[in-house]
């Protein structure tokens, strides 16, 4: 069903694993921050930064780069991990996360970190900014694309729906909204807090082209991004079904790990599990 070479699959899976390890070490070192979302999104970020995006870590302001707007800013540990691994800044700098004077703010800031693209955290505002970028690219006949990474919980914000209407009206087919559909938010399950399903139908009714994928399978994520390039004259929504906390047994599907401080030993256990997975990946692919 897709032609991704096995070597590329292995590279992306190992990259995702490494990003997960960075999430654990940086959040544990910061003594606060979010784990569930970032771990669930690791495979998507591995594909974005190491397969999909046209970007240049040494020239973050490159005019023709693809733009990646992280709307759910609280999940920035995964973006920081991907940026560090890609070479935007030294991996060691991840240990400054949430510290005074750091470029790696608790929620990302455009003016502090080159390549962060925008400041985010207050939910529901990313797709609007991404739509503005995509609209400007169309005005100027530019080929770069805009990706908005969003959480499912933030779909409760009215501004997000304003942006959905706008992108649908102007047929922004250079805009891709990725939804981390993990069904959790701070207070519990999304469908209990404020139901979003059928989410696909809602996007389609707003004149979007919808693609669903397993957000924890790099092959399927790559397939979704490929399909997103088929011209439909519609903005594209990728509903990426993910497992929050993916890769750490005690975090998976537990909404409390949206964000909570590690207790003694927990980070170590998480890292041990991830390293075991890394070894297994290396062995499987050998």
């Amino acid at each position, binding site marked *: 069903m897709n032609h991704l070479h096995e070597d590329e699959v292995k590279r992306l899976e190992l990259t995702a694993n490494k990003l997960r390890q960075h999430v654990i070490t940086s959040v544990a070192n910061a003594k606060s921050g979010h784990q569930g979302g970032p771990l669930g999104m690791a495979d998507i970020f591995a594909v974005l930064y190491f397969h999909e995006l046209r970007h240049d870590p040494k020239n973050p302001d490159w005019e023709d780069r693809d*733009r990646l*707007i992280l709307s759910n800013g609280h999940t920035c540990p995964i973006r920081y991990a991907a940026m560090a691994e890609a070479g935007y800044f030294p991996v060691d700098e991840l240990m400054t996360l949430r510290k005074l004077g750091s470029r790696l703010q608790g929620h990302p*800031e*455009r*003016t502090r970190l080159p390549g962060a*693209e*925008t*400041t985010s*955290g*207050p939910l529901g*505002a990313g797709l*609007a*900014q*991404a*739509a*503005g*970028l*995509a*609209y*400007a*690219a169309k*005005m*100027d006949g530019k080929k770069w694309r805009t990706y908005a990474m969003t959480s499912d919980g933030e779909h409760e914000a*009215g*501004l997000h729906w*304003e*942006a959905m*209407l*706008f992108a649908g009206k102007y047929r922004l087919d250079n805009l891709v909204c990725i939804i981390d559909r993990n069904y959790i938010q701070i207070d519990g399950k999304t469908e209990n807090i404020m139901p979003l399903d059928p989410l696909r139908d809602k996007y389609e009714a707003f004149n979007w082209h919808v693609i669903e994928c397993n957000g924890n399978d790099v092959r399927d994520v790559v397939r979704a991004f490929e399909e997103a390039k088929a011209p439909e004259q519609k903005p594209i929504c990728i509903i990426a079904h993910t497992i929050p906390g993916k890769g750490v047994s005690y975090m998976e599907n537990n909404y409390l790990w949206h964000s909570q401080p590690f207790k003694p030993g927990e980070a170590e256990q998480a890292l041990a599990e991830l390293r075991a997975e890394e070894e297994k990946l290396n062995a499987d692919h050998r």
Partner: protein
Amino acid sequence: MFNKNAKLADNALAADVPMKPTRDGYGLGVVEAAKIDPRVVVVCADLTESTRNLDFKKLFPDRFVQVGVHEQFLAAGAAGLAMAGKIPFITSYAMFCPGRAWEQVRTNICLNDVNVKIVGSHAGVSVGPDGATHQAIEDIAIMRPIPRMTIIAPCDAVEAKKATLAAAKMVGPCYIRFAREKTPVFTTEETPFEIGKALTLREGKDAAIIACGPLVHNALKAAEALAAEGLDVRVINSPTVKPLDEAAVLAAATDCGAIVTVEEHQITGGLGGAVAEYLAKSRPTPQEFVGVPNVFGESGEPMQLIEHFGMGVSHIKEAVRRAAARKAERSKG
């Protein structure tokens, strides 16, 4: 006596002074700005005519973006346009943007430090019959504490056009406040305008009025009337509320020893507050505040409402007398 350098219109205080809304000045200014700079775009939230964007839309249809009644998107989407190099003028009623879109203005525009110009029309109680829901009298107060924000409240249509052009030229977030109603056009093309600079319109040393917006005209009338009573009153037009022209404020406090601030806005958090905050630390000076006294507006005729809420010429005169009396009291003590 008028400051000659202010180059006010000869008929500035005459009965035949021409009348025009400041929003008209925006409409002319944004078209001119667009001719000068191809990056200028207008983003509109279903108020093309009343925010004076019809000419822009006609002349630059490809640079006119209609977003509908989406004020939060108006601000957040414009942040995206600006990130891609555009200079968006986002236009609505001040009540809705920046009013409704405050957090998007704060986080997506100012914290992001992107080059978006916020055009808030229909500010003040002079919106008139529409009533309190549409009378933005808190807009300056909600913009002032946001870092990186520049705030301009032009005094007439001529200054409004200059402010629009200057906003397009400066780099960074800027809020410009316009009024719906026709008000006197008393400055001229030759009247100096620079963001961050106040301008002395009338010399004087017994008290100084520092004003912004169309009420500057009332301040001038009050000063003229007080001259007949032997009070020599300086009138300063301070269109830029932020950054405040501190040198002009300090000079007014030093030379005149009594200050009256005048604005069509809540007294809380407006120009008066900015002046008071500055003087409290640099040169504490008796100050009286003309503005809306922390109440909501209501329906009525525009000029009727200006009087009703205590911002008429007689109220300004009273405030000057009070400030001058406090100054005299102080020099006795």
